[in-house]
């Protein structure tokens, strides 16, 4: 579905939800909850915080649905979720907790293709661990910008609107974040290139 069709569908659901149809809003939740979770978990690096952030984002979206003025409900929701995730992260920083072990846990990892041998599976695991470690090593702002650009496919102006900074700042965060990731991954770059 292209962006224009997606926006039109979302606008119709928002209108219905504003008219009092809870089911219409829940359709929006169904459409976007996986997207929001995968986006926020990459930014905050903690599934529990991410779940809370997504919950708060949908609560806030429901309360403030009248404020949505288009065109992209996805971008509007992303902005709320990023704000919620940062809010949660700030609270977490005030109350330090144990490092989250789930990124090291393979139980949730997608199954490796049958064609891959044990060596390749082990290599893939190392790569994932390296990416996770290096992503945690860059700043939260750089992480958010990289996730929105490289993973979610937003353009510079959209990211600027979502994160409430200038386009130049967005570019700077993305490029500096990528350079930092490359430095971090340098010893392990050969398998990635392959």
């Amino acid at each position, binding site marked *: 579905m292209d962006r224009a069709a997606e926006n039109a569908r979302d606008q119709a659901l928002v209108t219905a939800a504003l008219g009092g149809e*809870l089911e219409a*809003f*829940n359709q929006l*939740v*169904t459409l976007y*909850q*996986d997207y929001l*979770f*995968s986006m926020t*978990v*990459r930014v905050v690096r903690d*599934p529990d915080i991410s*779940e809370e952030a*997504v*919950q*708060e*984002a*949908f*609560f*806030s979206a*429901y*309360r*403030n649905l*009248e*404020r949505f*003025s288009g065109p992209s409900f996805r971008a*509007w929701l992303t*902005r*709320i979720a990023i*704000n*919620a995730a940062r*809010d949660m992260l700030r609270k977490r920083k005030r109350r330090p907790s144990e490092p989250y072990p*789930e*990124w090291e846990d393979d139980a*949730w*990892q*997608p199954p490796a293709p049958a064609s891959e041998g044990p060596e390749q599976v082990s290599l893939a695991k190392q*790569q*994932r661990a390296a*990416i*996770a470690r290096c*992503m945690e090593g860059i700043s939260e702002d750089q992480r958010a910008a*990289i*996730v929105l650009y*490289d*993973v979610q496919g937003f353009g510079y102006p959209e990211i600027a609107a979502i994160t409430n900074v200038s386009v130049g700042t967005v*570019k*700077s965060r*993305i*490029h*500096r974040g*990528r*350079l930092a*990731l*490359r430095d971090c*991954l340098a010893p392990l*770059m050969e398998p*990635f*290139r392959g």
Partner: protein
Amino acid sequence: MSGPRPLPPAADHERHDALLVAQLVAGDPLEPEQMSEAQRLVADCGACAALAADLPVVARAVAQEPVPPRRRDHRLSPEQAERLRGNALTRLLRRFSLPSSRAFQPAAAGVLSIGLLLVVAGYAWPDGGTVSVQAEPNLIDWRTAMPSSPAAEAEVAPVAPSLIEAGAARDAEAPDALDGAAEAMEDPEFAESLPRSQAGTSEGLAQKSGAGQDAAEGDVTESNLAESYLAGSAELGVAADGIEPPADDEAADAAVSVADEDATGLSPRALAPDDARGRDVTAEDSAESPASVASASPEALDDGGPPELLVVLGLLLALAGGGLLLVGWLARRARDPLAP
């Protein structure tokens, strides 16, 4: 994806602008000089070329990073939805915080400012909303100067006869009416029917009728008229600075006319015909008297003009503006911090 080109890293690679290479790789618009510099770095420096090749690989690796699965369903239950909608006040305040209500706050501040300006302008009005004694000695607002408590009235009562005596000179031209009033005053039934505030003046009226007779005999002169006028002002606590004894008959007449009617609370000329018909004088009758004075000289006794109107209007506007600002402030406080 091909690997980095087999170029040796330049000796001064540490001084190369890696950010410029990153911008080139991302396809960002660059100035012509920056573009040629970035291309030169990638072409001549092996390390910069390796960097340019690695950056897309890094971006792809980040995008392919797997994430844990979502564990909760975030759809809202009807109870949650009801709670999130909030009560009527919350919804109202939320409405005031909408972007479409953005002009609301400046408008409220404007209304408040205009209101305050009007209040200030009302107080700064040249006459201050009351008639100035210094400006026009004959235009004393006796209604404001007149004490209203019984004790104050007792103080004023002795003054009234002197003023009335002076006024009698003016009324000497209507001896018939005064005679009628005097007769009415002598009637004990009528004296009892007078309100207390006027009881002290009945004696004055009686004297006045006598004074009217005296005046007819030429006892009242211009000089004792002015003296009694100033004495009355002093007794009533009215600032009489700059008041000169009226120099001519007309001024004396005007002063006496005003003092005469208001000091007694009764207008002898208005009272006389009614009394002559034997009607009881009531509080309503005495309330008519100031109105008749005001109609006699509206410019002199006009105390409900523009200044008071400005102050009242200003206060109303300031209150309205302040109230709207308060609502806006509450709306801002009630606003969801997560909402764009």
